[in-house]
């Protein structure tokens, strides 16, 4: 587990390149900084300045090496590396509110942008006009889209929204792809069709993630719950209410295990059992430093009792690696099926890389199935 503090400001969003040697992140302003790993140090090699508002989403396509960014200035740019410089191409999203999140599709021929205009813009490149064109998914979204994730078949898109629902839409664009094969979520997939809509949870959906096979989708909601739905004739939905503060981001690390992190500043493991259709808490994935217990003098005890009405010796210092909320989690190695390393960035401006094997051996009862 290695922690690197990039900045003092929060990291709004980040994305890794294909071989995980470079990271693109937004230091809570209008720019995107790209850092390259050099031994144990990170050197800033590029600064991408084009947005007029805070950059809210970055995604780096591994195969085609293109970066897409979206921001509160209602624009998205697709950046391609020409020689040693990243050149932007504007994409007109036709939205009248800020863009909140962006994701490349698995085949990298389209990307989806979630925005505050209560719609999702699915953009694809039109060869004839040499221009990125977008189509909107509007109904039945009632509020801001906070998070997106693509299904491995390149057509289905899961979206978490501020109207307390997680939905799976079809983003099938006939100009760029063939008709998709039937999936457990349904077989007819015209553009904009709602394949699944969640019920039950109350609270903005902050993070959503498909499993590696695409048969399961998990989402984290602001009422401190995590839920998993499994596609099928009748989609089965199970949720777990937790005792912690709300979680902001969630990802599958194997077909049955999820890692989520949020306002409690440490990642948490959840295990999904499909036979019992139950989600359970797997463990807290943070190894706190054992701080030396200082003995307290009687005078200190009285002072504490007077000031804080308690004789507790614990100081009000967070023992976790991140000192502020974790806002994004990304898989580094192994994909969503057998993740070996994942990375978290947060509002403390730091980035931590977690190694799954080390965590498994360090926490005794942790089992990642």
């Amino acid at each position, binding site marked *: 587990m290695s922690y690197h503090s990039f900045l003092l400001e929060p990291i709004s969003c980040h994305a890794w390149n294909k071989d995980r040697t470079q990271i693109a992140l937004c230091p809570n302003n209008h720019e995107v900084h790209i850092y390259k790993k050099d031994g144990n140090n990170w050197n800033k090699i590029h600064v991408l300045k084009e947005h007029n508002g805070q950059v809210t989403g970055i995604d780096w396509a591994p195969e085609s090496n293109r970066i897409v960014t979206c921001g509160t200035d209602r624009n998205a740019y697709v950046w391609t590396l020409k020689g040693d410089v990243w050149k932007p191409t504007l994409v007109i999203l036709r939205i009248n509110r800020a863009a909140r999140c962006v994701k490349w599709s698995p085949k990298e021929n389209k990307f989806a942008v979630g925005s505050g205009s*209560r719609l999702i813009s699915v953009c694809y490149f039109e060869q004839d006009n040499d221009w990125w064109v977008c189509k909107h998914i509007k109904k039945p979204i009632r509020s801001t889209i906070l998070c997106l994730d693509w299904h491995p078949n390149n057509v289905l898109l899961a979206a978490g929204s501020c109207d307390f629902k997680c939905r799976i839409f079809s983003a099938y664009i006939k100009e760029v792809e063939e008709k998709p094969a039937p999936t457990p979520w349904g077989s007819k997939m015209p553009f904009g069709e709602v394949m699944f809509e969640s019920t039950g949870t109350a609270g903005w959906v902050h993070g959503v993630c498909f499993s590696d096979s695409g048969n399961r989708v998990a989402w984290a909601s*602001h009422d401190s719950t995590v839920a998993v739905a499994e596609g099928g004739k009748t989609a089965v939905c199970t949720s777990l209410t937790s005792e912690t503060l709300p979680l902001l981001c969630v990802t599958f690390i194997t077909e049955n295990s999820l890692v989520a992190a949020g306002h409690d500043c440490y990642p948490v493991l959840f295990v999904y059992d499909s036979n019992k259709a139950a989600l359970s808490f797997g463990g807290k994935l943070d190894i706190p430093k054992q701080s030396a217990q200082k003995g307290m003098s009687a005078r200190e005890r009285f002072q504490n009792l007077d000031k804080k009405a308690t004789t507790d010796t614990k100081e009000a210092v967070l023992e976790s690696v991140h000192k502020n909320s974790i806002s994004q989690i990304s898989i580094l190695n192994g994909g969503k099926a057998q993740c070996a390393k994942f990375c978290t960035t947060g509002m403390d401006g730091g980035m931590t890389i977690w190694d799954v094997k080390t965590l498994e051996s360090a926490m005794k009862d942790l089992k990642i199935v």
Partner: protein
Amino acid sequence: MAKNTQSSRFRGVDIDEYDENKFVEEQDEASEQQGPDAREVDDLIRQGDTMTAFHVALRNPPINSKNPAVKERAQAVVLRVLTAFKSSDIEPAVKSLDRNGVDLLMKYIYRGFEKPSDNSSAILLQWHEKAFAVGGLGSIVRVLTARKSV
């Protein structure tokens, strides 16, 4: 023009109703949610069986109901039960609840905080401490984010 802007009685249409961006809450059935049975709870308290009274009071919460009188009645019943408990009995009572029960108890506790009466705040704070130990910050977050509450 001056004459036109004085009275708006001629406006027959409420245009806000037709605004397609208006967020309409989902309507749910409120049929069986009449709140706990006050008489049954009173009897149990008089007999001294506070634990059963507690469980009865937490049944049938008027969550989906739009009737404020039903909610007031339910709140009054629950507050009576909570006040009838001895301090030492609070912890086992909270432990006997499941996850949803603890969330529901938290909702009633916060509702009780809204309208403090003589001794209610002190008692509610004791209940809050025990419920927090079991439910954690998550249960409080759920009180704050609940769309349909008691």
